[in-house]
């Protein structure tokens, strides 16, 4: 009897043991299956060896990925564009060689945890990173960076100013990566070009003035055909002189906007009316009229003669491109600190290809637009350019687009009521 109970107990024990083992193996098999189900599973292999194989495989994958990451990091380290990366608290976690040399990051080694601001004291870079994080979008910014006084001696400090362009990207975990490029050569090249053109225009002035005077004298002394020719010479010469004067004006406004303006109290409605009176004879030839909406007493602090130039140019353009019997609309909207002026015509408007370039100097758009006018009223190509310069010198802005209703050109100027 006791022998039977002993045997029974033993059998039950073995069954439980065997069942427990099966359960563990089943769970291990489930784990293995969840890891990768593409691999063939030879049922003949034991569970431990399958696990060993799986771990070895994972280890190999990990090594592969680490090698790839290292390869990318090495590439980024040597790339000719500067790159740095900061974490969510603005600690510098990585930068490449170009970034070190561009921004003079010479007190940091990889692995050290230091604030970017400790190493590069640039408020523009700091703001760029903050803006990237707050908007969640890539930002582009250009500024002039002054190399750290500390790394150079006190004497020749301003030789170390660089024009930078930075593009920032938001990365996972609120980290930010910034690419930086030295724009100095571009800036220098542009400045050289500007200077050359300016010198050229100055040089051209004097001989042109002489030619103009002589042509005038000749015109007075000649008869019929010869008189006509010399008048043509005078015309064309004056056109050139005008072009040069306007070009120089634009350059001067660009250089020193504040010094060129003489601010006065200007009433917009009366100013625009004066300009229109001047242009009325030409407008009436085509039966073009002006419609004004916006109020009678709009006062603004501005340079009266420059503003006159602005409206003269805009209205002249509008007349040139308006069909007969159409209306040019001027709408003025007064806001708290600014005034918005819309000049809308009913012509063909700007072509899509021209639109980004309309304010550039000497840009004249496609030939079909200049065919509308007779040769005596041909534009200089600088009209919109000087309008933009004057508006910007007043700390305003101007947008050119096509009006959705009339289909014509729509220029919107925003000006502050008082200079800031």
């Amino acid at each position, binding site marked *: 009897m006791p022998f039977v109970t002993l045997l029974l107990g033993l059998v039950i024990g073995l069954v439980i043991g065997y069942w427990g083992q099966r359960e563990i193996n089943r769970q291990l098999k489930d784990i293995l299956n969840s890891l990768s189900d593409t691999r063939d599973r030879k049922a003949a292999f034991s569970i431990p060896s399958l696990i060993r194989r799986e771990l070895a495989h994972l280890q190999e994958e990990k090594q592969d990925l680490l090698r790839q990451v290292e390869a990318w990091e090495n590439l980024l380290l040597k790339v000719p564009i500067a790159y740095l990366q900061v974490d969510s608290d603005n600690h510098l976690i990585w930068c490449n060689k170009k970034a070190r040399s561009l921004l003079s990051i010479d*007190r940091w080694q990889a692995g050290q945890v230091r*604030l970017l*601001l400790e190493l590069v*004291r640039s408020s523009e870079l700091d703001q760029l990173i903050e803006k990237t994080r707050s908007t969640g979008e890539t930002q582009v910014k250009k500024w002039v960076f002054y190399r750290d*006084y500390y790394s150079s001696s006190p004497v020749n400090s301003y030789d170390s100013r660089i024009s930078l362009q930075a593009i920032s990207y938001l990365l996972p975990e609120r980290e930010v990566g910034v690419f930086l490029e030295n724009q100095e050569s571009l800036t220098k090249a542009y400045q050289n070009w500007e200077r050359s053109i300016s010198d050229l225009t100055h040089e051209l002035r004097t001989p042109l003035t002489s030619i103009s005077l002589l042509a005038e004298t000749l015109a007075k002394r000649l008869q019929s055909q010869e008189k006509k020719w010399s008048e043509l010479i005078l015309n064309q010469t004056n056109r050139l002189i005008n072009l040069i004067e306007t070009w120089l004006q634009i350059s001067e406004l660009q250089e020193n906007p*504040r010094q060129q303006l003489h601010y006065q109290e200007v009433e917009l409605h009366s100013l625009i009316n004066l300009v229109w009176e001047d242009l009325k004879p030409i407008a009436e030839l085509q039966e073009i009229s002006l419609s004004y909406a916006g109020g009678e007493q709009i006062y603004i602090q501005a340079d009266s003669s420059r503003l006159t130039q602005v409206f003269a140019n805009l209205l002249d353009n509008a007349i040139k491109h308006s069909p007969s019997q159409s209306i040019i609309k001027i709408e003025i909207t007064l806001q708290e600190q600014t005034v918005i002026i819309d000049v809308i015509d009913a012509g063909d408007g700007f072509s899509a290809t021209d639109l980004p370039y309309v304010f550039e100097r000497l840009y004249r758009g496609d030939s079909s637009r200049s065919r509308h006018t007779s040769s005596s009223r041909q534009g200089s190509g600088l009209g919109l350019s000087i309008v933009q310069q004057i508006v910007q010198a007043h700390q305003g802005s101007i947008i050119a687009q096509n009006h959705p209703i009339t289909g014509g050109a729509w220029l919107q100027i925003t000006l502050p009521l008082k200079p800031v």
Partner: protein
Amino acid sequence: MQSTFESQYPLELKYFRRILKKLEQDVLRMGTLVEDSFRLSHQALFERQLEAVEKVALLDKRIDQYYRQIESDCSSLMILQSPVAQDLRFLSACMQLVRDLERIGDYSKDLAEIAIRSFLYTPHDCIKEIEQMSHHAQFMLATSLVALADLDGEVGRQIKQLDDTVDDAYDRVYQILAFQKDLKGVVEPILLMGLTIRHLERMADHATNIGQRVSYIVTGLRN
């Protein structure tokens, strides 16, 4: 501050470290703005760039904002967190430091105003030497900010020596300006130059103060 984040710190301490880091970042931000302001007023005065003057006015407002914010953050941290040792020194030194920074910012605005007035006159003979003073003072400011960033007590002391150069230059130029004889026209240009060197000398002094406060943070000694 050069520190490594140790994960075995209790949670409150880690949080405190982060707050201190954020405070340091704000102080450096303010310092950078003051540097920008100083540089712009230099450009206005010595390179006759009047556009710089407007930018100085805008910067000054932001500098004042930072000053008030940092002062209030420092006092609330001292009350709420009851820090000790270097942390306490850091907070109290920061409160003083931003005051010096704010003063430099104010002097910078004064220099910009002097620039507008002196624009009408031809530059004085001493202008080159005064320009050097300005460069030197800016160098001192940059050095003091680096000392703060690195928590370097040594550099803090070195700035004191740099201050002597500025003081000597001040004395020299003062002598020339004060004893000018046979003036033609108004005395304003001389007056403006006198004010300029005085402001520059004060700015250099405030930069020296910043360096000394950094020394205090590190060593706990006032010298």
